[in-house]
């Protein structure tokens, strides 16, 4: 089956936007990290074909592009799940019991570092998100929750249909 017309429009647009970002930096290899940021914003993750295109356009060896993309934890080489929990494991959150949050997510079947796990929930841990005054902090689908509790996680998981 062919893709429906609206989807195709979106795809074309993303290519154009990525191209624009690269041309803004005059296709300089020095801008690799900025370009990867843009690519991930547009596509959600960085599949091999996309890395290959970027390497080609910036005139960089492919292995270097993957080397850089895999060095930085912000860049995801795998597709992301529908819902993301990021548990902060910074010192303040750790001392305030962040491991309890990880355990609560663990019990639901989602493991840290996993992506697209059971029921499309991804669980990540962060090395201090800088919200130490609110420990333990949890980022749920991009929103920071202060003083998160296992109960909060349980409620959220129930709401999105994870037991």
């Amino acid at each position, binding site marked *: 089956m062919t893709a429906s017309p609206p989807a195709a429009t979106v795809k074309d647009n993303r290519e154009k936007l990525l191209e624009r970002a690269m041309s803004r930096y005059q296709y300089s290899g020095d801008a690799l990290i900025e370009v990867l940021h843009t690519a991930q914003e547009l596509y959600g993750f960085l599949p*091999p074909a996309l*890395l*290959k295109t970027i390497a080609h356009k910036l005139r960089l*060896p*492919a*292995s*270097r*592009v*993957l*080397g850089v993309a*895999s*060095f930085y934890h912000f860049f995801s080489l795998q597709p992301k799940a529908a819902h993301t929990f990021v548990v902060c494991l910074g010192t303040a959150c750790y001392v305030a019991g962040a491991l309890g949050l990880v355990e609560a997510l663990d019990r639901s079947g989602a493991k840290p570092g996993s992506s697209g796990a059971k029921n499309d929930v991804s669980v990540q841990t962060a090395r201090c998100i800088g919200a130490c005054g609110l420990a333990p902090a949890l980022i749920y689908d991009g929103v920071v929750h202060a003083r998160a509790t296992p109960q909060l996680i349980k409620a959220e998981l129930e709401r999105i249909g994870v037991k």
Partner: protein
Amino acid sequence: MSVKTLEIDGRMLTGRTGETVFAVAWDHGIQIPRLCHVGGLSDVGACRLCLVEIEGRKRLQASCLTLIEEGMVVKTATPKLKSHRKLIVELLLAERNHVCSVCVMNGECELQDLAASHGVDHVRLRYQFPSLPVDTSHERFGIDHNRCILCTRCVRVCDEVEGAHTWDVCGRGTASHIISDLGEPWGESDTCTSCGKCVQVCPTGALFSKGKTVAEMRKDRGFLKYIVTAREKKQWIG
């Protein structure tokens, strides 16, 4: 050309301006240990085996990256340096799966030589036993990640001498590993020229020629100097 005089291990030596402590020491028979350095490639100072003590400097310095200075006083083999080097070799041996008895490079391996010369008769650290792949998809060569010490000689020779930049380092920290192109099997790489330079510079049995069995692999340690001198000076040394 200006010349500088310095003291290394109690001997007064001279070297040319712009030379490294490492180069001058080796020129005079003082063999500072090394794993990431190889003549003809840029230096990265990553293996930390060539660290030396320099009078007046607070920290130990990687001799492969330290330029000589007039009146410098260098010590290359103090008890402290020797004990650090020994522990670094042990760290390497414990990091991946180095089993000399079944290795193609047994008897010719630079890591093995270092272990022997530093009296590493056993490893005081816990072996990590990581599960790592062997890629033999290339028609002539193979890469065994179990024996890789991440010295990046292959990455540099491929980039700086061959110009293909097939290899690079992927991931970081203890998860770092060498990749070809976008992590495809080596045999499927569309940038590899099969020149084999990476195999020749690899200090261990991580990169090897196919068809060699235990202790059969020999590497040509002189070829790089030959090529680099030919390129830079138009001289073909035998």
